[in-house]
């Protein structure tokens, strides 16, 4: 049996909950993983101490972990992780790290895993139009999609050790660029409300923003919206040539549901569609479909949600 290693997912300086999902995924591969926490300050790793189903926690401490640098992170983590199968989250950054770590060890990488059965791993391919199941023989590096595996409970008591490590940075940040908005990015959010061409004008996105603020959600957009209106930046685009998202809840408003849009969001856990055309393809993928104009539906949605959150 090969050793299992989970690389903790770090967001805004703390351990992200998907780390607990990675432990469940590792358990499905047949063992209790070591959780390695990349950090500049070892106290960050404390939160991993209670994740059940793990064998122990290593705080991998290095200045290199202050900002993501693929080469340095792979080097610094490779020095700490024992040989074995490594699991990471399937965020863009962690997929990048997974690929570099695998290459460093001359291993193969399997990305975007959504199901595990013994040594067989399943991932969406062709933008989610088909699923691919592969068999791994021996150690590999595996990235796992969020919101697929249940989070391991926080009833564990793992021993935490601190290991210093280093990596040579190959990039240097010159400037952080101001974000267009303080809201979450679609790639990070657990709830997304997206608008399409049916919103009529970029000004009408304020109605989506109001709901996003009520729910702590991100605002996304279709390509038609991004291409048509300068005020809607490409960073909001969901789909084939935008971001691939996997939230718990995706609300599509005035979006027809073109195959390239679906490519970016069809694996969302729950999908709500609001569209005035009952025949819009998005409804075939919606758990809750509302045939109505957004002008009718959004005020009702907003006031009901605001009432719930109050």
């Amino acid at each position, binding site marked *: 049996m090969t050793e299992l290693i989970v690389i903790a997912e770090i967001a805004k300086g703390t351990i992200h909950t998907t780390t607990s999902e990675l432990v469940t995924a590792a358990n499905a591969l047949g063992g209790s993983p070591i959780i390695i926490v990349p950090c500049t300050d070892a106290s960050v790793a404390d939160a991993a101490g209670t994740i059940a189903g793990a064998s122990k926690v290593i705080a991998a401490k290095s200045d290199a972990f202050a900002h993501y640098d693929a080469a340095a992170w792979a080097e610094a983590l490779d020095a700490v992780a024992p040989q074995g199968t490594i699991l990471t989250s399937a965020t863009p950054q962690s997929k990048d790290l*997974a*690929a*570099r770590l695998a290459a460093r060890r001359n291993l193969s990488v399997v990305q975007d895993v959504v199901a595990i059965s013994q040594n067989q791993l399943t991932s*969406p391919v062709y933008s989610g139009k088909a*699923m691919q199941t592969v068999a*791994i023989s021996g150690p590999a590096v595996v990235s796992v999609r969020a919101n697929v595996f249940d989070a391991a409970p926080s009833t564990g008591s793992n021993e935490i050790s601190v290991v210093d490590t280093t990596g040579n940075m190959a990039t240097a940040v*010159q400037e952080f660029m101001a974000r267009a908005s303080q809201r979450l990015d679609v790639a990070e959010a657990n709830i997304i409300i997206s608008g399409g061409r049916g919103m009529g004008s970029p000004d009408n996105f304020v109605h989506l923003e109001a709901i996003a603020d009520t729910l702590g959600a991100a605002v996304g957009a279709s390509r038609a919206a991004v291409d048509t209106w300068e005020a809607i930046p490409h960073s909001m685009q969901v789909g084939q040539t935008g971001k691939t998202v996997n939230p718990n809840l995706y609300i599509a408003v005035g979006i027809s549901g073109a195959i390239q849009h679906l490519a970016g969001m069809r694996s969302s856990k729950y999908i709500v569609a609001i569209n005035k055309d009952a025949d819009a393809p998005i409804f075939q993928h919606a758990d809750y*479909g509302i045939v109505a104009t957004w002008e009718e539906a*959004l005020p009702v949605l907003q006031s009901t949600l605001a009432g719930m959150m109050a």
Partner: protein
Amino acid sequence: MTKIVVLVKQVPDTNAKIVVSGDRVDLSAVKKVMSPYDEFAVETALRHRDASGGEVIALTLGGAGADKVLKDAKAIGVDHIVRIDCEEELDSNSLQSALASTLQEMGAEIVYCGKSAADTGAGSTGPGVAERLGWASASNVTSVGFDGGLTVVAPSDGGNARMSVNTPAVITCDKGDIKVRKPNVKGIMQAKKAQVEVKTAAIQPSSVTIVAHSMPPAKPAGKSYEGGAAAAEVANLLRDEANVI
């Protein structure tokens, strides 16, 4: 003379319907195109050449059928086109090893590729090849500058950052603000006549093998409502039935 290499991959047209017959996808009737993000990589490679001189070589791995994607790159303006001849299905380890050894042999100094291929969506090739070469890498890059060293704009810490990148490097390209040039008549004529340089590379055995393809699990039919007032009920169901808010 800077040797700029751009990795390109042939994939099914993103509009194509994907069918699974038996337990494999059947792509025989599907139109093949250059993977969309590779188009940004080709454009960036050409801009790099235009800014600092050198030559751009498009490299792919595949059977003779993959020559089409190289000819498409040639029509847009790359200088040379090279294919590593391989019909087999490779895992990431075998693929990256073959690419890395070929890049080394070619004397590549900078490599561009798409942030992920439209078929696998994996995004492993760029960073994996960089690691094998011992190079820097920057991924999901939306803008590249060539003045006074290589600089890129890429996602960082939940926003974007401008970063300088050591060279040699592999840069994986996302859609940015750049417009991708289209082939002109002269380019298309040149591409027709262009010779693909065919290379062989040692191929390691794969340790990850495809067991089966299947269609995505069908979603049970959702609930549908008429009229905006139903939004109130849907909000309640999101809380009480779906438990997502």
